[in-house]
């Protein structure tokens, strides 16, 4: 190769990665980063989107959000919904993973059950919402089974009674989300070296001791990173709640996403909705930083 050719080649090598990345960066820049700046801008304007020349509003819309008891109720419901979901996703995922991993069941049964246990994962949030509405109808199958067993005395309106609605949507979400944990933990379990358990057997360790001192510590990295992701994603859940209860009855299941959506597209208060959206963004960003730091530390 001549010198000129080599320089040319090196230049090409230096520019090439940026060229390959450019379509992605343009899309992420224009359709993700720019809108994020835009929504922050909206939150400081009066009549954002609706007027061509919106005036500056200062922190007015943030003030309005923080003065709104429904916002605080939504925040609380989001926290309850999210924490319960993550804890139960993890617990159920762990129990199912341990059961499926046991050498007491025959391999064919194991494979069949693995497919069936993943089932809830294969359904869209909207469909999950519709299924649970059918199951939990006042005249539906859940009520009639519970009545038969004598667990409840009369028909419960799971989704339309303020006392049960939040628990009911949380339950539906727990059902829908545990397979992520199960699948990941199952993969993790298969990665734990067998020697650990053999050494423990020689020392005469009991099953629960092996669980606490070997299995759980070995799975910890997976448990933490999936819990964080699950937390971030569950916090943003919209369709499940929108379709089962729509945030009702009387705000009983209002979460941050439905609260923001209603502000924007039912009351057309897009400025205030933007302020609320920015608050959600900040919470998510905080958690994301935490997640990235954790991933890097690993």
């Amino acid at each position, binding site marked *: 190769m001549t010198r000129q050719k080599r320089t040319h080649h090196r230049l*090409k*090598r230096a520019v090439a*990665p*940026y060229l*390959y*990345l450019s379509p*992605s*960066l343009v*899309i*992420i820049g224009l*359709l993700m980063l720019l*809108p*994020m700046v*835009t*929504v922050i801008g*909206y939150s400081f304007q009066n009549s*954002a*989107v609706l007027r061509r020349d919106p005036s500056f509003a200062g922190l007015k819309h943030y003030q309005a959000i923080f003065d709104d008891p429904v916002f605080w109720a939504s925040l609380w419901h989001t926290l309850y919904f999210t924490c319960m979901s993550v804890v139960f996703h993890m617990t159920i995922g762990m*129990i*199912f993973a341990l*059961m499926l991993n*046991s050498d*007491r069941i025959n391999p064919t049964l194991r494979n069949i059950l693995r497919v*069936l*246990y993943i*089932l*809830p994962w*294969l*359904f*869209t*949030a*909207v*469909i999950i919402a*519709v*299924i*649970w*509405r*059918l*199951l939990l*109808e006042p005249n539906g199958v859940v009520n*009639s*089974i519970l009545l038969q067993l004598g667990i409840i005395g009369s028909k419960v309106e799971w989704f339309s009674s303020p006392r049960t609605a939040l628990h009911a949507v949380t339950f539906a979400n727990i059902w829908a989300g545990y397979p992520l944990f199960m*699948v990941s933990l199952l993969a993790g379990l298969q990665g734990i070296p067998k020697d650990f358990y053999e050494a423990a057997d020689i020392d005469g360790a009991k099953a629960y001791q092996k669980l606490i001192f070997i299995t759980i510590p070995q799975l910890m990295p*997976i448990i933490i990173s999936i819990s964080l*992701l699950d937390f971030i994603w569950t916090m*943003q859940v*919209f*369709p499940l709640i929108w*379709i089962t209860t729509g945030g009702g009855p009387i705000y009983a299941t209002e979460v941050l*996403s439905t609260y*923001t959506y209603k502000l*924007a597209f039912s009351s057309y208060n897009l400025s205030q909705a933007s302020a609320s*959206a920015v608050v*959600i*963004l900040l919470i*998510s*960003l905080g*958690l994301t930083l935490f*997640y990235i730091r954790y*991933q890097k530390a690993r």
Partner: protein
Amino acid sequence: MRKRHTPKDRLITVALHVALAAGLFFAAFPIYWMLSSSFKSNTEIFALPPTILPKAFTLEAYAAILGDPVKLRFFFNSYFVAGAVTVLTVLIALLAAYGFSRFDFRGKGSLNTLIISTQTIPPITLLIPFFGLVVSYGIFDTYVALILTYLVFTLPYAILLMTGYLNTLPRDLDEAVAVDGGSSWTALWRVIVPISLPGIVATSVYTFLLCWNEFLFALTLTKSTSMRTVPIGIQLLMGQHAFEWNQMMAMSVLGSLPLLIIYLVAQRYFLAGMTAGSVK
């Protein structure tokens, strides 16, 4: 070898199987109920006591869905949008992943962090500015609006997934092309793409599923019935005739078919796609 024959041991095995059966009921009963209800008449769905198997098996709900051009349009829209986004995402993500995997350049680390962090941006935050943009560019209620917005959500993950896959391929392969005087572009298409098929399939599966399931943007950025996708169609069905439960279940079954088929045919790729974010 463990002893298997003590009574206590046998008891544990039995208890485990009972627990497995309970788990199976928990996981599968709701889905079984959807399936069986889709073959029942509306009166039978709420029969007391509930009928586990449809007593009068009927396909009337499916006939009602498949015979209605409005509902078929929902399916067409979903397939079309998800298909288009999948093709675009895979192409764009492949290029970016190639850049990440095969080159060292300034800003690589921070760009990677940027892409990881964009995965967690709440959709509701982007919804309002998207709505503003879509209206001001006059693409409200069009496929373009849906395709562009979905692209933003599928791309970050797809890039990470593809990069992960390309990193598993030995560099010697494309370096051989460079030695022969070929450009990196030639190496990508001649060498990398043909052996990246598993990675491409996993990325496609993931992208397709994400688009197929999307609800919030489809709800907000489209308006006319002819532009609605399946998830919105199911919601509309619930609003219109709230008591046609068998049709809602039939539509849910039909709406779940692509996911079920992909899962059964390409389980490995499906799981790779679904757990992409959590296993690094």
